[in-house]
């Protein structure tokens, strides 16, 4: 057996991850054709590379099918209840910065804080007869945040993509989504609620608390962690 390292299988996140490991003398490479999801690890023995969608890495870590994995804080918090018991952060990697924020139409001059949103939600429900809709794919994180903030009379509507467009399309009144520069929000005439930062996320190396480490692999894991930590 060997230590299994799960990393994102494509895009900038994969490239940045490869660079980050390379700076620590661990060379990750994809093997085979461009479309084949297989890879290998050089510079250290006993470590196998597993290429996965970033969204699946939390689940694989929690199930103990990989020992280490690279994915965003947002995905870990959303997908793993009581995540602290299942995974442990090893290193924040300094890229893939993304904030999960609450945003409302920029034309809502009367809304700056979550308490404003709460007041607007009450009036909206009276006026329209249904709860103010917030589009997101981060249901758990957003619901927990709004409960903490004391916002009532809203409903979450699921949006798996182009979330910023839901307001103009009138399928939602507000959104909660990942943003890095705020550019897409501005282009869609939305503004961030001032105290509406739900989570600051970045690419992070996680260690599974559930994966079994065989005696033969312990040395490899320790060497790897020493080099990365």
């Amino acid at each position, binding site marked *: 057996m060997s230590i299994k390292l799960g990393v994102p299988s494509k895009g900038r996140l994969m490239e940045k991850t490869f660079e980050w490991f390379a700076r620590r003398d661990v060379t990750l490479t994809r093997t085979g054709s461009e479309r084949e999801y297989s890879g290998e690890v050089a510079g250290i023995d006993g470590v196998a590379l597993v290429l996965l969608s970033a969204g699946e890495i939390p689940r694989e870590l929690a199930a103990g099918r990989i020992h280490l994995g690279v994915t965003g804080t947002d995905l870990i918090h959303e997908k793993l209840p009581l995540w602290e018991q299942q995974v442990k952060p090893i290193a924040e990697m300094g890229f893939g910065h993304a904030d999960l924020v609450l945003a409302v*139409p920029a034309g809502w001059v009367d809304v*700056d*804080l979550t308490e404003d949103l709460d007041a*607007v939600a009450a009036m909206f429900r009276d006026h329209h007869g249904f709860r103010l809709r917030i589009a997101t794919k981060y249901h758990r994180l957003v*619901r927990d945040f709004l409960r903490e903030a*004391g916002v009532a009379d809203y409903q*979450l509507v699921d949006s798996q993509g182009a979330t910023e467009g839901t*307001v103009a399309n009138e399928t939602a009144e507000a959104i909660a989504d990942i943003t890095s520069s705020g550019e897409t929000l501005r282009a869609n*005439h939305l503004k961030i609620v001032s105290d509406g930062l739900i989570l600051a996320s970045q690419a992070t190396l996680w260690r599974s608390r559930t994966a079994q480490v065989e005696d033969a692999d312990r040395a490899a894991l320790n060497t790897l962690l020493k080099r990365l930590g």
Partner: protein
Amino acid sequence: MSEARTRAFALRDSFVDAGAQVVDPPVLQSADLLLDLYGEDIRARAYVTSDAMRGEQMLRPDFTVPVVRMHMAHGADPARYTYAGEVFRRQEDDPDRASEYLQVGYEVFDGSDPAAADAEVFSLIFQTVAPLGLRAATGDIGILMAAVEGLKTTERRKAALRRHIWRPRRFRALLDRFGGRTAIPESRAKLLAGEVGTDAPLTGLRSQSEIDARLAALVEDAAQPPISGAEMECLDALLAVRETLPFALSHLHDLSIDLPAIKVAVGRVDARAEALSARGVDIDRLEFEASYGRTLMEYYDGFVFGFYAESRPDLPPVATGGRYDALTRRLGKGVEIPAVGAVLRPDLMTLLEGAS
């Protein structure tokens, strides 16, 4: 049959002996109705499922709503119901709590003498759990609601407070704002000074006239004096009441001199104390807490109670109950049927018996 299930049916039978009729509502409940009642938070607590024909359905998170609906559709008046069966709760924060467990309930729809009905339900549960030596907690949300109604402030402020009675932290923040104890946020001050504008086009369903209406309301509110220091102190004192029932009552009577709006609600506590005594409950040892029950489900609006195992603070309450007239009003679209009820957890009763 498991021990808890055997016990559940035995408890239900004992409630039949107390005069209740057995009901057996379906497990699948319309999600729309529960969402409308409880808001988005119910999704964090209940399992949602769906099919193409009926849309979203929830595995019943409790029996109260289906029993109320059934009673409203074709119940005789007065009526007493009992049931036993599984309820389903998602547990996202505590893996040690059960996500499927048995509940046995007793619900009374009888408006003729609310104090007697309250006492009937409480004493029945009290006797049922007596061998377990539990701590009983009681309260009455109607007192706080009456106190809010009676405040010498605007209807809008009262509505905001009323809306957050079941969210104690938000309620406190609003109260402190309205009482002038905390300043308005900087962004609000700028908005009121006319210093906030935007070049962005307005998108979405919420119209300019709705924004203007809120702005007008904010301007109007800013011109209002804060809730008086005297009223604020009375509310603080009210929220802090926590003692045995006779002491709590004398405290509440003192407070009602300065807060005359709570007189009627305090009178109900008087009548209930008498009815409890008449049923043999030792009220000198019964705790009363004015803030109790505000974080239970959002439908209790009068008498509330719970039974707790003091040796096991990690366990949820073994029994909870209360009066939910407001729920029947909402489900009945304005038609209110006075109702009080309680549920027991037979699994916890068995667990605690095994431990002692």
